[in-house]
């Protein structure tokens, strides 16, 4: 029996989880916006975040939420390395080429991952007191994940709009040649931006790891969700990605009580294709001026 409160609880939970989807999507959106590259290693990086969480907590006994900073920094470094391996060569070429090269790297990483860990399910048990309203409890992990996401999104905003390197990154995404002309080392900025996008993916993986069990192959599903979210919010618009994530979370919360879980996937992909066709600039572009490309 679905009551109004039950629906509301479902929606709120959807909002919490959706914000983490948004965080995952921000990584893709940032990279796309800055350098016109669609990063298909995103899924592998989410998995990397999940497994880093597991390894740090299980073998080193690091408290769960303290793994966030090292995972972020690790992601940054790996991202910069990935940039030089697969992406640098492809800047300026059609986005399709970088799509293929990042896809290739993704294959290699997932292949290595399955060789090492198979398709075994991993779980990181996190016990955190939740918040209750009547009969409905919001898991503490969901609340923590949403709060951390909000914090990270806010920090990202501060970085991009109120620090010199952040403004440099935005300058490069606006007009690379002009940025070079005013003395910004654009290649280094591109590598850094890519690293940032990957770091966001890793951290979102870590947060998802606190919420749900995972395997080496889980990254794929979240990567696809990230694409739906990114497209909804508009490629290149990290704020839009966060809003898109929340929208998807709300959508899942709304439909979960009524429709078996598997059908939501079908709806999301149909939504994905429809938005790609009807609103290539994302839903937010309906109000704001359209970005070129």
């Amino acid at each position, binding site marked *: 029996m679905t009551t109004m409160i039950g629906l509301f609880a479902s929606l709120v939970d959807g909002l919490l989880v959706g914000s983490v989807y948004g965080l995952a999507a921000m990584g893709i959106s940032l990279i796309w916006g800055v350098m016109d590259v*669609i990063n298909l290693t995103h899924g592998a990086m989410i998995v990397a975040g999940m497994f880093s969480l597991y390894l740090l907590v299980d073998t080193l006994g690091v408290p769960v939420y303290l793994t966030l900073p090292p995972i972020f920094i690790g992601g940054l470094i790996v991202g910069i390395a990935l940039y030089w391996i*697969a992406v640098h*060569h*492809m800047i300026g070429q*059609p*986005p*399709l*080429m970088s*799509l*293929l*090269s990042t*896809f*290739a*790297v*993704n*294959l*290699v*990483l*997932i*292949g*290595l991952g*399955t*060789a090492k860990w198979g398709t075994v399910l991993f779980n990181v048990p996190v016990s955190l007191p939740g918040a209750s309203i009547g009969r409905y409890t919001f898991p503490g992990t969901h609340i923590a994940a949403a709060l951390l996401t909000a914090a990270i999104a806010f920090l990202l905003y501060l970085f991009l709009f109120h620090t010199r390197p952040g403004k440099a990154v935005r300058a490069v995404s606006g007009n690379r040649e002009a940025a070079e002309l005013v003395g910004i080392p654009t290649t280094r900025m591109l590598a850094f931006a890519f690293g940032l996008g990957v770091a966001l993916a890793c951290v979102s993986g870590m947060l998802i790891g606190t919420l749900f069990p995972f395997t080496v192959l889980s990254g794929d599903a979240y990567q*696809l969700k990230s*694409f739906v979210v990114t*497209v909804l919010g508009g490629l290149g618009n990290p704020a839009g990605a966060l809003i898109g994530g929340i929208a998807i979370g709300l959508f899942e919360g709304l439909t979960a009580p009524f429709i*078996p879980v*598997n*059908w939501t*996937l*079908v709806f999301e*992909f*149909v939504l*994905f*294709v*429809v938005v*790609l*066709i009807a609103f*290539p600039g994302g839903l937010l572009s309906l109000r704001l001026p359209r970005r070129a490309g």
Partner: protein
Amino acid sequence: MLDAGTILRRPFFWIVAAIIAAFAITPSIGQNVELREDLLLAAVYITLASNLNLILGYAGYVNFGSIVFFGLGGYFTVYFVSVLRWNLVAASLVGGIAVSVLAFVFGLGILRLRGAYFALATIGVNEAVQAFVTNFGPWGGGTGIYLSTELFMPLGGPAKALWIIYYALVGIMGLSLYLSFFIKISKFGLGLLAISGNEDAAAILGVPTPRYKAMVYCISAFLPAIAGGLYFFKSAFIQPSDAFDLNLSTEAIVTAMLGGQGTVIGPALGAYLYEELRGWLLTSDTFANFQLVISGALLLVIVLFAPGGLMGWLYRQWPTLKKVLE
């Protein structure tokens, strides 16, 4: 235009005929079942790569989800045979047509997207279809459909049926190669290559781009659908995770690019070499799980350093090869 005289005079026509003959005859000598299974898989890979090449190599549109045609063809055929009790020929043909019609419908939606957006949308189509089929009761949902051995009786029993299906698949492979060849030397193919070069310029110069794109998308669905029907009938079992396995789609892209997209023999060569490599990797102890890693590494090397693939390299060494090996 295409006329019998011109075609028969081109050496490549006979090269393809020789390939088909080789595939058909070599396992038949001594009824070598192991070789047949190996070549059957190779024929499937070649079919997938060649048909993908029509849209990838000729028109320049990357179809990440090309496996959806294979899987849907498999499902239609298996369903027609097991539930409606049709014979295999009718089932696979109607399946092929049904999938082409579906391709047309999908195409209406996604073909107006360009480049990377189109590529992403094709992944979306494959995943959506897989999610739908997993929930679709009449097609067995997540567990899939099993075929009982009695369904192999009209073909003369399971052992004989496997041979018949093998020859049929070799035939489909041959048709794929000829289709690729004929399109390449036709006006349609020229239009596709123009689209790949610069779609807007092609449109301005009079190439009917939306129509050509829709046509090639549908055509590239037909033979893989039939191949899927035959393949899954032979396996006597189909389930969504096998039918819509994105890894196979990926391998089709890797093999088409490895051999040389945009040529006829390239994808076939790439597919054959890759399938042999993969077979070897799977049986080798150290590398059993590594085929994805190898695919990925190969794709990366090709994309970074040799986008023309094997044939691109061969053409540069021996330019006269272009006239013989298309």
